[in-house]
């Protein structure tokens, strides 16, 4: 039996009258990278955002079915959303460091949690930057404004910022689509290293990226989960013709 961190059952998600997700059933395995692929508007980012209830910010959004994180339904009334978002961090398409120093970016979350001890904060910042494979590049200018970093460095800083919260899962929404190939490669290597400690769910439009870095791939189309399976199988012998057509570029 797989060690699953998320269990999603019959998930329907609506934006007003529009149904963006239809009857999704997925298990997300612990310490694995799961890639979500599919054409624009297929629901993959919506699905990703539903995993830490980011969709709550949209008034007209409502769901049926359930999403269990560590065997608790995260949409149950009274569920601690702040705790959920601490445990399920997120990295976005465009690097979005806060307009403050590199150090303060990473220390922001722990400070919000009430950690004031400078030594403890220093330790968290250093280990988070190291985990995000950016420490060596920024250790001598840790008080510089984060916006002075390159795009690739900013994105790794955002990953460090997520790691500082000691999450269990990191959600990544097209984290390399705004980056050059070298920066992309660094993030991909980082993802590979991070899965020893974290579960990663990543939305990507880059098919080869999904093939390179993920253990499992889920293919979405028009709000439906068409196929999910081991990445090696999806990219060599997909079961569904629609998956085959999409990954080989016959449509989409």
């Amino acid at each position, binding site marked *: 039996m797989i060690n699953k961190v998320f269990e999603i059952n019959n998930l329907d998600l609506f934006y007003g009258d529009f149904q963006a997700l239809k009857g999704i059933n997925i298990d997300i395995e612990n310490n694995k990278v799961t890639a979500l692929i599919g054409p624009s508007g297929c629901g993959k980012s919506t699905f990703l955002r539903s995993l830490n209830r980011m969709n709550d910010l949209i008034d007209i959004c409502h769901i049926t079915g359930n999403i269990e994180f560590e065997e608790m339904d995260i949409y149950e009334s009274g569920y601690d959303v702040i705790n959920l978002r601490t445990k399920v961090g997120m990295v976005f398409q465009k690097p979005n460091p806060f307009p403050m120093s590199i150090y303060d970016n990473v220390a922001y979350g722990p400070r919000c949690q009430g950690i004031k001890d400078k030594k403890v904060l220093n330790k968290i910042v250093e280990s988070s930057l190291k985990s995000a494979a950016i420490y060596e590049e920024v250790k001598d200018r840790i008080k510089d404004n984060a916006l002075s970093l390159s795009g690739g460095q900013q994105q790794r800083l955002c990953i460090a910022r997520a790691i500082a919260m000691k999450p269990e899962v990191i959600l990544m929404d097209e984290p390399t689509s705004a980056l050059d190939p070298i920066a992309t490669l660094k993030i991909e290597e980082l993802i590979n290293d991070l899965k020893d400690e974290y579960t990663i769910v990543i939305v990507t439009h880059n*098919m080869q990226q999904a093939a390179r870095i993920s253990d499992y791939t889920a293919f979405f189309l028009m709000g439906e989960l068409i196929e999910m399976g081991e990445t090696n199988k999806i990219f060599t012998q997909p079961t569904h013709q629609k*998956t085959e057509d999409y990954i*080989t570029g016959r449509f989409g």
Partner: protein
Amino acid sequence: MLSNRKRFVNELEDLNNKVLDMGSEVIESFNNLIKVCETGDLEIAKEIIENDKMINEIEVSINVDGYLIIARQCPVASDLRRIITALKISNDLERIADYAVNIAKYFLKTKHDNSIVVESIIFLGKHLIKMLEGIMEAFDKEDIELALLINEQDEVLDDVYKEEVKKLINIGKTSTDEESEEAIRGLLVIKQIERAGDHVTNVAENIIYLVNGKRVELN
């Protein structure tokens, strides 16, 4: 202007056509081999050796095209299988053609009249040609049933080969020195056709992989 996908599809079709062309040339080599056996015309044997250079060139071309498509298009799923299959089948076809060349070279070097061995070569060779024609049709039509049928024909080829081996051994034991020597050399020659049949079964395995992505061991 062609879309990228259309251009990619054209490249895959070109690759497929090269494999089919290569198959036709290999069949031609064995047809020529039968003619050498039937007519004793050694010029045809030389043609087989010459033709093999072209077969090798087609294989190189399939390799170059295949690697380029992989590098440029990063193919997946059935596209990827099609390229891998083309590379593997062309490798088997190249080996099969080499067996025809080995036999052609035998005819050019031997001092025997070959009356004993040609009978066996014609018998086995014609069976092999039918297998080659069938397997190339199975590749063209992506027909697993036909590929499996051709695979069964290899067992028939093996049985016939064993019978021919027995016959030649018997001649070796009971005939004059010269006939015995021809029979012994004949054993080595017909082994080439038996080996060619094994490569046909490899092609059958690759056709199955091409169609449904499953790896099977047929031989």
